[in-house]
Structures are given as C-alpha cells and as structure tokens.
C-alpha cells in the first residue's frame, strides 16, 4: 500500500469540511463516539445541522469562534492507499498555513462553488499550489446539485480555470464535478451526471500516478549524522546516516563529497534490517564509503558527474510568516537540508500578487503572508538545486536569531547575480 499526502484549502462555506467529512465517513474512518461528540456540540451551540467542521476544528478557540486557525491533519485509508490530509484554512491571512500544509503534499485539492465559479480565493489556492510545485492539482467543482448538474456549467468553469492555470506550470490538473452534500462523485458516481465519464474523487486519489513525484535523477544525500558506535565489535565502523534527497544511489557508485570535493565510492548502503543494493528518496539509510574521509553533518554527497549549484549568493521566493515585515538588511538563521548557516537579506526584488500572479517590482518589503522574491548572502556556500527541480535540496526556512521563531519558507530559484 502506498502513501499519498494531499492538502485541501478552503473555508466552511465552500463545502470543504462537508467534503472531508464525507471522505472520512464514507471510508468508515469516523467512529461513532466522534460523531456523537460532534452532534452534542452542534446541538449545544444551537446549530440547525450537524457541523462536520467540528471533527477537524480541535482547539477551543476554533470551536467557539467557528473558524479554523491552523493546519489540521486527518488520516484515512482504503485498501489501495493510505491518505494524509493537511486541511488548511483558505483565507488570505492564512497563506502561511496553506504553504505549510502544501509543503509535503503530492496533491492539492481545490474546491470551487459551481454557482460562483472561479473566485479570488480559488485563484490564490491554485497559485500557491503551483508555487510549491505540487505535481497534481484536483479542482472539485462542488455544489453541482445547485446548478442542476448541468454539463455546460462544469465546462464553463473548467474553461475559465484552464485559461488561468495555463501560466501556472502545474504538471497535471484534473477537474471533477461533485456534490459533497449529496455524495455525488465523492466516493462513487451516480446517475445525476451521466455526461461525466471520469473517476470519482476517491478513485482519482487512489489511482493518480505518484511514482515520479520524487527526484530520481540527481543523486543527493545530505549527511544527517556520523555514526560511530564505539563498541568493541564495531571498532572501526564509521557510517553516515541520512535521508536520500534525490537520485538513486547504488553500492559501488563514485561519489563526490561537498564542500571538501573529495571523491570516493559507496561501500555499503544499509539499515538495521540489512544491506541494500540501492537507495532512493525518501529512504533513511546509513552509508559507508571506501575511503577514510572527513565528512560531517551538513555535508552533501552527490555524483561527480551530477553536482548541485554551489553559492553564497542566492535568489529565492519566500513566504513571509512573521508579524514584522521583511526588509533588506535583515539578518537571520537559515536551515537548508541538514545545515544551519547565517544569512543576510540583500534585496527584496518583488512581491507576488497571489491572486493575479503579477509581480510588483516596486515592493521593498514583505508583510505577513506575502510571497515575494529576495536575494540572500550566506556565511558559507549552500549546495542546492532549484526548487522546481528538487523540493528537498531546493527549500529552506529562515529563523529569527533572537526569538528562535520560524519566519519564512523559502524556495531557491538559482544563484543571485
């Protein structure tokens, strides 16, 4: 069984909670006591109907105010796949939550109301999903029951969306007409839309091809820690533990170590379960190499024939997550793969309007939830790939050095000129 991680974005009124509730309920992941508790709370609040949002709104403030303030993770499984849903609030002031929820997703599910079609909100969600290079996008045109299940309305919204998304660069977009409330095309189809020949949402989630979501072409192994057991029977053992970030690494392969630029060969790839012939993302392994080299945490093992970019001057797109704005000159700590370095922001180059995709080149600062282009200089060179090529070696976070709070998510675009 495989694992598929997907993110959903939206607010209560577009039927997102109803949709998630239905996915969980119809796949029998909601237990009777959980439904009981939701019914009790709904009744106590005086709601007219059972509010399925209560299943995911876990914090006291959220329940009292009827809002979602954070990313909630939900889980369900079918005989084919296990699913992790990162359920994020969709309003603009929660852009950072959507970025967080999307960062680990294979797929993003966007809801559009069949009556209103494309809105500013759906545009923003698609644009953030594209920015984070989510390989699969599913647009569910919901509330089809309220437009008489008409094919023309579905085609109209699909056309509108295709036009907008042409510039987004998403690998694959799937459109599904549904009614979450009536349960049409969520788990199973129905006679209501016999003109629709595609899969139901659940079948699509079960069958969408995710084999190539990881980078299997550029060998990248960031060292997490050096393993030296200091036990009598393993006296000379020196292994390097880490999670493969790209490519397929095989025993016997020639490798290059950065930053030392020394070359050696892979002697073993192993885990507690035994030796491996090859390792690929996202496996966590221990590697031993043939020569006795000085390798430590934060170093990167790659192929001599396939090396990452190496630079102290970086260009990136960031989502700013702190209350006080980001301006040039700001000093921060930066975490990239398994390394911490210090960095200074050289320049805020543009702010990206998330609803229109336009760049505001006059912007000189980024406020909370803004997305924009910056250049940075780091104390030591980073070994990286553009984010569009590798989501692991192309991403970083920025951390405030006095409060220790994470203030930005960043995607590397290349070397800054």
């Amino acid at each position, binding site marked *: 069984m495989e694992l598929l991680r997907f993110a959903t974005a939206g607010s209560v009124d577009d039927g997102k909670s109803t949709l998630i509730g239905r996915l969980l309920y119809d796949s029998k992941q909601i237990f009777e006591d959980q439904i009981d*508790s939701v019914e009790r709370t709904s009744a106590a609040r005086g709601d007219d109907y059972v509010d399925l949002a209560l299943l995911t709104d876990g*914090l006291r403030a959220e329940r009292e105010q009827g809002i979602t303030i*954070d990313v909630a*993770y939900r889980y369900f499984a079918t005989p084919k796949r296990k699913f992790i849903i990162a359920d994020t609030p969709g309003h603009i002031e929660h852009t950072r*939550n959507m970025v967080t929820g999307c960062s680990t997703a294979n797929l993003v599910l966007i809801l559009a109301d069949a009556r209103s079609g494309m809105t500013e909100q759906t545009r923003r969600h698609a644009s953030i999903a594209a920015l984070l290079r989510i390989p699969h996008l599913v647009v569910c045109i919901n509330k089809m029951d309220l437009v008489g299940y008409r094919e023309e309305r579905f085609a109209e919204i699909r056309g509108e969306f295709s036009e907008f998304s042409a510039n987004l660069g998403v690998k694959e977009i799937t459109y599904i007409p549904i009614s979450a409330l009536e349960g049409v095309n969520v788990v199973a189809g129905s006679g209501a839309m016999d003109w629709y020949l595609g899969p139901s949402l659940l079948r699509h989630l079960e069958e969408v091809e995710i084999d190539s979501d990881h980078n299997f072409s550029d060998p990248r192994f960031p060292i997490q820690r050096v393993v030296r057991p200091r036990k009598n029977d393993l006296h000379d053992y020196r292994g390097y533990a*880490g999670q493969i970030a790209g490519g397929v690494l095989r025993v016997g392969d020639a490798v290059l170590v950065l930053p030392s630029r020394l070359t050696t060969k892979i002697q073993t790839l192993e885990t507690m379960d035994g030796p491996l012939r090859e390792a690929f993302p996202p496996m*966590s392994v*221990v590697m031993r190499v043939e020569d006795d080299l000085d390798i430590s945490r934060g170093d990167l093992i790659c192929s001599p024939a396939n090396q990452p970019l190496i630079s102290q001057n970086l260009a990136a797109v960031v989502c700013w997550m702190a209350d006080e704005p980001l301006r040039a000159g700001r000093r921060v700590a930066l975490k990239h793969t*398994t390394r911490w370095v210090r960095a200074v922001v050289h320049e805020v180059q543009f702010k990206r309007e998330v609803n229109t995709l336009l760049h505001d080149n006059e912007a000189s600062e980024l406020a909370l939830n803004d997305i924009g282009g910056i250049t940075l200089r780091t104390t030591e060179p980073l070994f990286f790939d553009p984010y569009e090529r590798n989501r692991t070696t192309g991403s970083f976070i920025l951390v405030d050095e006095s409060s220790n709070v994470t203030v930005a998510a960043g995607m590397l675009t290349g070397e800054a000129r």
Partner: protein
Amino acid sequence: MADLLTHLDALESESVHIIREVVAEFERPSLLFSGGKDSAVLLHLAVKACWPQPIPFPVVHIDTGQNFEEVIAFRDMRIAELGCRLLVERVQDAIDRGDVVDDPALGSTRNRLQTHSLLKVIEDGRFDAVFGGARRDEEKARAKERMFSFRDEFGQWNPRGQRPEIWNLFNGRHGSGEHFRIFPLSNWTELDIWQYIAQEKIELPSIYYAHVRKVVCRDNMLIGVGPYTEPRKGEKIFEMMVRYRTVGDMTCTAAVESDALDPQMVIAETMVARFSERGATRTDDRFSEAAMEDRKREGYF
C-alpha cells in the same frame, strides 16, 4: 526505476529522520516510555534510527504507581535487552512530598497528576528534547500539534503560537530552560501501528491480546478488577475475554471485548472498530470537550 515505498516504509523513514535530527541537534534528549504499544513502536524506531549505535539517551517512565504488572514486566525486559538507562519518576513521591494532592473526586485516577512528575523529571534531567509516542489521529487537539512541539520554561504548550513546520526542515532552536516535545509518530494511525507491529514483530505486554479477565461494567466501559480498581457498590463482576487497546494508568484504562490473540487478529478487529481508541477506553478524555487541550497546555504528554 525505483519502486515506491509502502506506506509503512514511508512512515518509518519519516520517523527515523525526525529522531536523527533530534539526536544531531539537541544536547540532552530523552524518550518517554510507558510500556504501551505506541511507546514500544517509538522505542523500536529510535533503535533503528541510531543503529548500529545503541540509543544515546535515557528512557523515562512516569510511574503512577497504579500500573498493570504485565506492563512493568515488559518495560524491564525491554530495557534489559537494549541495555539503556531507565529513569523512573514516581507520582507517589510527589504525593508524599505534598507537591500534588491525590484527589478522590477525580475517580482516583492519577493520570492528571503525572504532569507534575513529567515536568520535574525534565527539569531535573535538564532534558531539552523529550520524545513521546502521541499520534495525531488520537484526539483533536493532538491533530494540530507540531512534530517538534515547543514548550516554554514552564513546560506549557501554546496552541496559537506554534512554529510553522515546513517540508522536513525542523526548527528546534530554543533558549535555556525551554524544551521540545518530539512526536515522531504524529502521522501514524492506530491501524498503521498494528500493521507495523506485525511487520516488525515488535513485542508488546500480553494484555494487548485477548485474555480472560475479571471486569465490571462502568459508564459503558469494561474496567478490569484489580488492586486500584475495586468494584463499586452494586457492580457485578464478569469473567470475559478482553484485550486493552490503550494502556495507561490502570484506573483510567478500560478493556474491550476481544478474541484477538495476535497482531493480525487485532488488525482485523481494528478495521471494523466502531469506536475510537480513546473514546472506547479512556475515562480521562471524557471530562470535557477540551480535556486533552487543557492538560496539554499545562504540560501533559
């Protein structure tokens, strides 16, 4: 072309990555071990993450003094096998010192009293990272907690001030006196745990499998009769085939009727279960809608 990992391999790799990040970046980690199934899986993952080195941090048990004897026997066996250091912090000691009061009004459970002992052991041990086996599918407040969960110098959790957790880039930076609770099993469900126990042949205390036990029926739950759980007036004692789905303090953990004798049979039962794990078996989450959130804010597991 590489094959995709199975869901268990992917979850394992994610957990191993988290544990290694903590070992690499924190000065004094420790691992909370109750002897329950989730902490047995957590300990197994820690062993795998550190392999071939023995785990380089101590294992901590908060002992309510109201344990199942099978669980304590299992704990001691597992610790002896691994040769790691075990720290036991007794709730009874805190009661004897007068730090906390054993409140009979709470149904004589010492569950909530554990928070004091937990915070004390973290302070005494100067631990800056504490691994726990909590899962997000257990409870709604946990569904919103980070894998690296920041605690201030009072050990408190602030749900609205959590650090965003993006990609697999964890930020464990902290000041002195502050610490992190680390939850490597965040993305695992009860079913994943059992499938992994079956796959890895992880040993568990015998009470996780069906056995005959004397029970009483209280609030629609089956409470095992034992030294800390005497039958109340009017309660009738039954003998029944039961197992435990969760194992905590004896006073707040209920059994479920079951015929499951091994992990495969438990998996089959889990797949058709009608009640959630905590809903079916934990009296401690029933006090209020936000019982878990309130306890977590105070510093609970």
